[in-house]
Structures are given as structure tokens and as C-alpha cells.
């Protein structure tokens, strides 16, 4: 272990922040206070926090619909939450929700509503970075289910041909809604697909935040030199596909078994081994919760978009020089 206790506590805080952030969402959902479809990444925090920590200063990230734990550590918590609650001071003026969130400033490329379509878009973005001689790469996250999309094939192949600075991070949580990965494909490891494009591919333990971070760091270093690759992180979706999904289709035993491997507990164990105290961890909990509560309070007080903001055609068309666009 090359990390100091303090560094590890830092990762721990992020994992906890990811978990608590979604638990907060969950509370709101259960109270019926939120609009939208909530795809929670509870249980997958290590994969996401690992990615977020591997990103270099100039690198870009394409998240998925299930990336709140990652976003809660990458973005400004208040502005993120404002977007989540559809407020006009959110990252995208409340128009995107976490379905489509993006931010230029934070180097966050849009979540795509069409699974797979974001993959070749990310490749195009990565290629542009290379053309502009930026020392930067893109991490494009996608789920196991998404790998079946034609756009993924086309995008990965184009990335390989163009030596695009990109890492495809497959967050394999075992399920695409009700479809287990074993019924989405006959292969064991989705990173095998890399062979089809002449790229390197590797499958790792997605519940180990350090492994994820370090693997991604290496992959990113290669990507910045024009060597794209696939990293598959295996983890598990603890919740239903979205909040409200009763999840009948899932074997409760498999489910319980998988949930035993809790990325937070894992790191806790290591931390105790390094001499961390209950008090230290408890302090983190308090700090994190406070931040989250503040963010939600801020967002709740924030204004919803007005009619005029909603019907602002300058946000639809950037150039309007005559003729009738409507």
C-alpha cells in the first residue's frame, strides 16, 4: 500500500460522500419530494471515486446516468444538487438533470440519454484535444448493458484507428435493468472486446478504489500518448435499476451475497489496520452529511426556471439571422 493514512482517509471520505449523497436522494424520493428517474450507484462508489481521482487536471470525464457518487466528488455539491432538483442555478440551468448533466468548467461531458451515443462523441472530443495538442485524455464511462450498442463498436473502432486519447471505462454492475450480464453476452470479461479493436483491455475489481484509481491512471497516461484502451471494473448494483423498480427479476440470494462486498467496509478495514480510529471515521460522516445537507438546502431554496427561461430560443439556436425557425 503506497498511500498514507491521510490519503486513504481522503478516499474514504469520498466514498462516504458518494453513498450519503445518494442516500439523501433516496430519502427525498421516498418522501415523494423529487421529480425524475433516479438511478442510484449505491455499492458502486469505489469504481466511480477511483475514476474521479485518476483524472488529471486537463482530462475530461463522460459519466453515466448512474454516476452520482462520482459527480458528488467531482462537482460543486450545491450546483450539482441544484441541477438535480431542476433549479435554474444548476449546472445546466435545470434543463439537464443528471440525465444530461455537463459542465465545460468542470471538464464534464454530457451524460447521454441514448445509451452508447456518447461513446463516439467522447472519441470525437478526445480527437479534438489531440489536434489541439492538449496533454489531455477523456475517460468515457459506460455500463455493461451499453456495450451491446452499435455505437460502442463504431466508437471504439474509430478511437483505435485514430489513436484517440481516451479510456473506455466499463462499470460492470452485473445488470442492465432486469437483464443480467450473462444474458447480454457470452463472454466473461467485457474488456475482451478490446481485442476486437487492437487495443489493450483489462478487467479489475471495481470495489477496490485504489485498484481502480491506479489502473485508470496508467491507462490515462497511455491514452495521452494516443493509446486508447478499455478498463472494465466489476462491481454490483445494489438498488433496483431506478428508484421504484421492485426488482422481482433478481435472485435475492445473489443480491445479498454481492452486497457483502461493500467497498466502504473494505476500505474501513484497511484504515483500521493503519490505525484509524472510530472517532476519525465518525468525524468524516458528520462533515460529509453537513456538506450534503447544505447542498440540498441550497438547492431547495433555489428558483425553478421561469416560463421565459424555459422558452428561451437562444438556448435552442446559437445563430439566428433571419427566416422562421419555428
Amino acid at each position: 500500500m503506497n498511500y498514507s493514512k491521510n490519503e486513504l482517509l481522503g478516499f474514504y471520505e469520498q466514498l462516504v460522500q458518494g453513498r450519503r449523497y445518494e442516500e439523501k436522494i433516496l430519502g427525498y424520493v421516498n418522501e415523494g419530494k423529487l421529480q425524475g428517474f433516479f438511478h442510484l450507484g449505491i455499492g458502486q462508489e469505489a469504481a466511480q471515486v477511483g475514476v474521479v481521482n485518476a483524472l488529471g487536471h486537463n482530462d475530461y470525464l463522460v459519466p453515466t446516468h448512474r454516476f452520482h457518487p462520482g459527480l458528488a466528488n467531482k462537482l460543486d455539491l450545491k450546483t450539482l444538487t441544484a441541477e438535480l432538483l431542476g433549479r435554474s442555478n444548476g449546472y445546466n440551468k435545470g434543463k439537464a438533470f443528471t440525465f444530461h448533466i455537463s459542465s465545460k468548467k468542470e471538464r464534464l461531458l454530457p451524460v447521454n440519454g441514448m445509451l452508447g451515443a456518447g461513446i463516439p462523441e467522447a472519441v470525437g472530443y478526445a480527437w479534438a484535444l489531440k489536434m489541439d495538442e492538449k496533454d489531455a485524455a477523456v475517460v468515457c464511462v459506460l455500463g455493461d448493458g451499453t456495450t451491446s450498442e452499435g455505437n460502442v463498436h463504431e466508437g471504439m473502432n474509430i478511437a483505435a484507428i485514430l489513436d484517440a486519447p481516451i479510456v473506455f471505462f466499463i462499470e460492470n454492475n452485473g445488470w442492465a435493468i432486469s437483464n443480467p450480464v450473462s444474458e447480454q453476452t457470452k463472454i466473461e470479461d467485457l474488456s475482451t472486446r478490446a481485442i476486437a479493436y487492437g487495443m489493450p483491455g483489462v478487467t479489475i475489481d471495481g470495489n477496490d478504489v485504489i485498484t481502480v484509481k491506479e489502473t485508470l491512471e496508467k491507462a490515462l497516461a497511455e491514452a495521452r500518448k494516443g493509446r486508447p484502451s478499455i478498463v472494465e471494473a466489476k462491481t454490483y448494483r445494489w438498488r433496483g435499476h431506478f428508484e421504484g423498480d421492485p426488482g422481482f427479476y433478481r435472485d435475492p440470494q445473489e443480491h445479498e451475497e454481492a452486497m457483502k462486498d461493500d467497498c466502504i467496509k473494505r476500505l474501513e478495514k484497511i484504515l483500521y489496520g493503519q490505525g484509524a480510529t472510530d472517532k476519525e471515521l465518525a468525524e468524516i460522516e458528520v462533515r460529509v452529511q453537513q456538506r450534503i445537507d447544505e447542498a440540498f438546502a441550497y438547492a431547495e431554496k433555489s428558483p425553478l426556471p421561469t416560463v421565459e427561461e424555459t422558452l428561451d430560443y437562444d438556448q435552442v439556436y446559437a445563430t439566428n439571422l433571419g427566416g422562421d425557425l419555428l
Partner: protein
Amino acid sequence: MREIAFSQAIMEAQMEEMQRDSNVFLIGEDVAKMGSAFGQSAGLYEKFGSKRVFNMPVAESGYVNFGVGAAMAGKRPIVEMQFADFIVLAFDAVGNQGPKQRYMSGGELSVPMTVRAPQGAGFGAAAQHSQCVEAWFMNFPGLKIVMPSTPYDGKGLLKTAIRDNDTVLFLEHKALLSIKGEVPEEEYTIPLGEGKIVRDGTDVTIIALQAQVYQALEAAEELAKEGISAEIIDPRTLIPLDKKLIGESVKKTGRVVIVHEAPKRGGFGSEISAVIAENFFDSLRAPIIRIGAANIPLPFGMPEQYCLPNKNSIVQSVKELLK
């Protein structure tokens, strides 16, 4: 008569047709154990097993084309899009493959495939999960398009669609899937191409489909209070289109308002307007008004309402028309 939800009507239509014809099968994302995202296939997997109802990977183009191939081989696939929006990825399959094979083969092959797709707004689900998609397909020869507004129509039309020997795009409206309506226990079908007078009237014809039928009904009630008598027509299918029924109404009222949920520019309202302006011009006493969504990718959440047509926009348009 018993009342059932729209989603159940869809389920029953599929069930009955699967029982009647062993060549009918159902594929899509999460149609098996989950019974579809809005319950439209609840119980079918249990009833018919994994050879007749099975999940596909997240690969819309692939599995609609799979349906095209199976249909050419004599099967009668029902292919579900989880959200109609995703049909953008199967646009070739739905518009350019299925409907053309018959003519392209000199009449030898046909593609008796039904593509079911839940569409429309109402959930604040933003720009890529809320669209009405019918207009994208209006220009394809060989295709048929069904858009029911009630559980009764949904069941009857879906059964017909499944029996039809051509490719049919069957659009169910998400916001209507939970409404209930009378549906007889006995078997019935409704032919494609027969519109319906939802409400009789004499001053203006309101043509609406799916969720907008209900907005039109509310508008008509309000207009009635001011002494304006609105007739409401639900064409139910866009291809084939019941031009005759529309014409009769226009002859009576001389005034037309067409309402749809998709953006106004390029929506099906333009086709219906053009049909009227071409065939029933002499009956027209006023401009043909179209009402559609704002020309905006729908935003997340509550503000989607600001973009959509509703009772009020219909009332206002009708009043202006009659001024």
C-alpha cells in the same frame, strides 16, 4: 363493462394474439421477467415462456432488424422499444427495412412486424425520454402508424396491427398507460384507418390524438360554456388516415384546429392540414390552426409544461378562430 388500465389492454392484446397464433412472439428490453417498463407485458413471459418472450441486449437497431428477419421467415414479431425515443437508433429498421422489403422483393417477402413504442411527455424526463416520434416516420412508403388514445382503442388496434401483414408502428402514450377505461371481456378488433368522433359539435373541428384528445375534451367543455360547439375527431391511425371522416366534419364546421404534442413545425398536424387544404378547401371558412409543442428539446421536470399544448392553448386558439 369492466375497466382496465391502458397497459393491461396492451398486455391482453398481445396475450390473445400470442394465444391465437404461435408465430407471434415478443422481444425488447426487459419484456421478460420485468414485463416491460410500464407493465405492458406483465405475465407474458410466465405464460408463454422464454421462446416466445425474451429480452434483447441494449441494441435497438439489432433487434428490430432481427424482427424484420424473423418476419420474413414467417414469424410475427412484436418488438418493443422501451421508450419511443430510442427508435432513433432503429430508424432504418422501422422505416427503411421493414416497410420496403415487400416492394423491393417484387411482392415476395413481407414483414408483418409490429413495433410498439411508448412515447410522450408527462414525466419531466427531459429531451431524450419524452418525445412523440410519429412525424419522423410519415414519409416512409409501406409503413403504417397507429396512435390510440383509450384502452379500448389500444387493445382493438393492437390486435389488428399484429394481424396486419405489413410493418406497423404502434405508439402508446406513456402518460395514458395508467388511465383506465372500459374494455369488454369479449374479443374485438378495430380496423386501421377508421377515425372516431369523440365529441359531436358544429362550430369547429378539433383533431387530436393520444393525450391531446383529453385536453381537447376539457377545452370543448369550457368552450361549450361560452356557447361554442366543438367537434373532436381522433383519427386513431395516421397511416392509413381516415380522410373521409375528417372531411365530413370539416364540411359541417368549416373550421379546424389540429393539436399534437410533438413540436408544431413538421408535426403530423402539417400533413392533416395539407390534406384538408387540398381536399376540403371549399368547406373551409377560416385558417387551419395547428397547435403543437414549442420548438424546444423538452426540458427536465415541471417546466416541460411550459412547452406543451394543453386545454388552455386549445381554448384560446378556437376562440381566436371564431372571432
